[in-house]
């Protein structure tokens, strides 16, 4: 697999898998407004994933964007471990979104300067949308953290639980290094400082406590996933796998 293909799939897979998780809230949101909000965010993420998958399909030359979404196994998905984590309660979903949105906000800002004009165009487009996803998750965390004793306790637990997945954002491996050298990819290790500042100021305002450094979990970007991803894919890929020629 070409380096550019893997790099593009990593970006696409984060949006696709998080989109699927957000879509699981559809018809189950805590309020009608939130049900609509999360379904809309899921749609944005699917749209973004589609753009990157179309480009990946072009690089691949054989598989279509749908093949890439619906015919790969978990070990060939390269998303962050964070995005496949189950939704849990609403506050847990919002913590997961806050950690991810903050990172993707910074990531897309940099990727929009990429020398690869497809990636830069898709990043610029996606950046416009991730901005309001970020405002949404940030507002909720401030509201829940600085809410009742119960809501504060719940989101603090989620923050503690999900913190271990955040180091993966800033890892640089061979694929990244080659893309950085070609001025295509983003040096995400340089984004850690700003990410940490935004997260710290948000959790301060939310009266939450920053979790202490714990053993980090990574590997998603190389296809090492929890069995949660397989369950997610089983549902997401059910129809095209069961009825390969289905049209709609």
């Amino acid at each position, binding site marked *: 697999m070409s380096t550019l293909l893997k790099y593009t799939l990593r970006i696409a897979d984060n949006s696709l898998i998080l989109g699927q998780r957000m879509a699981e809230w559809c018809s189950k949101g805590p309020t009608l*407004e939130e049900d609509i909000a999360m379904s809309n965010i899921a*749609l944005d*993420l*699917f*749209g973004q994933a589609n753009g990157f998958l179309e480009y990946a399909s072009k690089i691949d030359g054989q598989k279509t964007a749908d093949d890439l979404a619906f015919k790969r196994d978990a070990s060939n998905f390269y998303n962050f471990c964070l995005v496949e984590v189950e939704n849990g309660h609403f506050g847990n979903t919002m913590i997961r979104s806050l950690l991810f949105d903050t990172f993707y906000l910074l990531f897309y800002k940099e990727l929009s300067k990429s020398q690869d004009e497809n990636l830069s*165009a898709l990043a610029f*487009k996606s950046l416009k949308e991730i901005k309001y996803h970020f405002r*949404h998750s940030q507002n909720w965390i401030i509201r829940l953290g600085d809410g009742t004793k119960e809501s504060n306790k719940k989101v603090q637990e989620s923050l503690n639980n999900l913190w271990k997945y955040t180091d993966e954002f800033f890892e640089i491996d061979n694929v990244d290094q080659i893309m950085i050298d070609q001025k295509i990819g983003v040096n995400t290790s340089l984004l850690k400082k700003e990410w940490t500042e935004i997260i710290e100021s948000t959790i301060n305002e939310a009266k939450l406590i920053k979790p202490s450094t714990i053993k980090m979990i990574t590997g998603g970007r190389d296809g090492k996933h929890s069995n949660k991803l397989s369950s997610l894919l089983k549902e997401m890929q059910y129809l095209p796998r069961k009825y390969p020629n289905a049209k709609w």
Partner: protein
Amino acid sequence: MQNGKINKIWKLLETVPDPEIPVISVIDLGVIRDITVKNNYYKITITPTYSGCPAMKTIQDDIKTCLKKNNINNFDFIIKYSPAWTTDWMSKRTKDKLLKYGISPPSDITICPQCKSKNTKLVSEFGATACKAFYKCLDCLEPFESFKCI
């Protein structure tokens, strides 16, 4: 003659309504960026509005139907992401149409479509479709939708 045909396509597309906001056309929406011709084959360049907008597919289908009905069959679409679509591409006339239809147009100041008050409040950044946010008027108390500024 080919230029004449291109102009005709532009004119025809003015009759294709946005599938979710039928008072404006796909031209008003600003998604049609270019129409070119080569060897009697037309390329229509469209740019997506919001990534998650399912109407983009419907827009292409509606354009196909309209052109085929007018005996234009030799065309195809190019999807272009850059420059990214922005609500700035909507004309004042389009924005007036939206307001009249009951949707507050994209702007720094959100106006209540019922009583035209500027004293309004955001309820949710997400509405019934990808392009709209949900607002409330603090004067007449009516809820309304506003076109998101992007």
